[in-house]
């Protein structure tokens, strides 16, 4: 009898989702779906609001990555103003964006993924949580806390508060950097570098223990998309879009990020609120692509800072062509943290970083604006249209997690097929189905997610909907 396994909710991710796994009459997995069960509606909420409110308003989408929305939204508003913002403002925005990359990646790796990585995919779920990590690996937990502090402290020093700072505004930033603040931030760099290098060393040594997860966690050919700078290096703030394939060959390059509609289209399915962006020339669903840390390291020719370049080269040597296993998102996150710390130091040492000229003032000069940046989880697009009064008439947001939707669904199916059958559904198999999603670090919203005893609900349903078996946890 055909059966359906339901994992609801998926835990240790940002937001609300559930997974269903469909088994055929022989108990073999024949389909799996990752359902995003929440609806935010920010595109509608903002209609009628003055465009200059958008950065602060859009930052409320998330408490983990509000800076990403600030940046992309402010860039869309810059385009509406039709101004070139001061170079110092660009650098200051870059520093805040990188600080957020560091803190968000640290949250994903040390708080959300570490229980699986340190305690084991098959370990007791009562122990497989942050408290368990603290108890068993206190140094690594301290390192995670420190790295997150590093990023959040920089955001607070620049923007006045750690979550939803109002410092990034249309036309630039609203306050220049002082010399004392710059020196304060620079003083924190050496410790942050030591921590991330220590973490990278540990993770690389431990990779051998995850051979099966590496093999099965969304490990398939796909396209990879992200932003690169003019030199082809890793870029988070402004640059060209590049798309590479599984062999590492460049499929499309020097794409204008603001012309995303030329090459990205979104499909809709009736079983989830998250849309399915795909690479338009390849069609749906063949135009599956991935974004985020793994994609960025795959598309870039280098990182652009000394230590990160060394790590990038080692990372890319994992596989000929693109690195395909999504388990390596974790690894890529650590490399990007290293890059972020190094790049923040470089930007702070720039001669004009203390310039007072940090904002360009103008009224609306365009009826439309598009802002694109690289968020922790991938490419983030904000697209607004306004009326003659400067009020928002239409908005479209493509959030990084959305780009990965096709890949996450395919990843769940791959893991389910590898680890599950209808006759034996183990705790470890269930956890791996969730863990493949965690590898993408989806940010479905800044909503509650348990990190203690997992509130897992698994149902075995017959083809007629009868509950054949049911397990509650948490």
């Amino acid at each position, binding site marked *: 009898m055909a059966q359906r396994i339901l994992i609801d909710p998926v835990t240790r991710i940002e937001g609300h989702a559930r997974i269903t796994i469909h088994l055929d009459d022989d108990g073999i997995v024949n389909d799996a779906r990752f359902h995003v069960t929440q609806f935010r509606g920010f595109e509608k909420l903002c209609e009628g609001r003055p465009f200059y409110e958008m950065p602060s308003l859009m930052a409320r989408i998330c408490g983990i990555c509000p800076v990403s929305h600030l940046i992309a939204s402010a860039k869309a508003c810059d385009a509406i103003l039709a101004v070139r913002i001061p170079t110092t403002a660009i650098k200051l925005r870059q520093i805040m964006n990188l600080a957020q990359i560091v803190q968000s990646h640290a949250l994903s790796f040390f708080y959300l993924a570490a229980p699986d990585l340190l305690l084991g995919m098959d370990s007791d779920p009562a122990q497989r949580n942050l408290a368990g990590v603290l108890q068993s690996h206190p140094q690594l937990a*301290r390192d995670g806390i420190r790295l997150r502090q590093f990023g959040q402290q920089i955001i607070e020093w620049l923007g006045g508060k750690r979550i939803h700072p109002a410092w990034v505004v249309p036309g630039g930033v609203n306050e220049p950097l002082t010399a004392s603040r710059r020196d304060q931030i620079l003083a924190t760099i050496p410790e942050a570098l030591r921590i991330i290098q220590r973490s990278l060393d540990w993770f690389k040594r431990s990779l051998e223990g995850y051979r099966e997860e590496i093999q099965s966690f969304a490990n398939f050919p796909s396209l990879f998309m992200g932003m690169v700078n003019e030199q082809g290096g890793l870029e988070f703030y402004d640059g060209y879009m590049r798309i590479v394939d599984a062999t590492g060959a460049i499929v499309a390059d020097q794409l204008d990020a603001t012309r995303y509609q030329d090459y990205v289209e979104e499909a809709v399915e009736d079983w989830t609120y998250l849309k399915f962006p795909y690479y338009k020339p390849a069609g749906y669903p063949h135009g599956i692509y991935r974004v985020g840390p793994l994609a960025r390291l795959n598309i870039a020719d280098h990182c652009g800072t000394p230590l990160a370049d060394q790590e990038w080269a080692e990372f890319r040597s994992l596989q000929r062509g693109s690195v395909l296993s999504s388990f390596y998102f974790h690894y890529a996150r650590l490399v990007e943290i290293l890059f972020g710390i190094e790049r923040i130091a470089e930007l702070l040492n720039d001669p004009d970083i203390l310039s007072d000229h940090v904002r360009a003032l103008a009224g609306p000069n365009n009826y439309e604006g598009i802002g694109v940046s690289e968020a922790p989880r991938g490419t983030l697009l904000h697209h607004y249209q306004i009326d003659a009064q400067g009020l928002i008439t239409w908005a479209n947001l493509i959030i990084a997690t959305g780009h990965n939707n096709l890949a996450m669904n395919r990843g769940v199916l791959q893991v389910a097929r590898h680890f599950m059958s209808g006759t034996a559904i183990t705790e470890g198999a269930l956890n791996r189905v969730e863990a493949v999603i965690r590898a993408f670090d989806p940010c479905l919203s800044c909503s509650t*997610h348990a990190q203690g005893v997992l509130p897992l609900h698994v149902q075995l349903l017959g083809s007629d909907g009868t509950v054949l078996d049911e397990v509650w946890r948490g």
Partner: protein
Amino acid sequence: MISATPATLIIGYGNPLRGDDGVGWYVAQHLAAIMPATVACVRACHQLTPDLAEPVSQVRRVIFIDADAPCQDADAAPPVPEYGRIRCQRVAPDWSAAISACSHHLVPAVLLMYAAVLYGTSPVALVLTVTGVSCAHTQALSPAVVAVLPALVNQVQMLARSTTCEISYF
């Protein structure tokens, strides 16, 4: 990352967009403006997070300020005379609470446990709560809570300035 660490850390937490839930946040904002940095370090947060374990471990005493539940429904208990009541309780590290913790709902006992496990020390800790009337979508505190703010601020200041870690409960 506190540079010159005073003996006392005050953490007021809550959501200022949700009515009385934000009382701890508001009081911390106020205290940060009026209390000398040599007396206490004051932090206003939307919620407790594991990152606070380190600063908590660096002081002799930590004072948490929070809204007291239930305040979700003005029609429900507690009865009217309880609204705005200030309570002070001592709290200790609790590992059992840590095991069942949710990352979006960290309680002082768990944060103290994190400090103890990660940094080897946990300070004397007090939790001051104010019984709220409503946690509806508003940035305004209820009149009952507003009325006790001077008393709450005074009590926190008194505790922060006391030279001993012994406490009087009220």
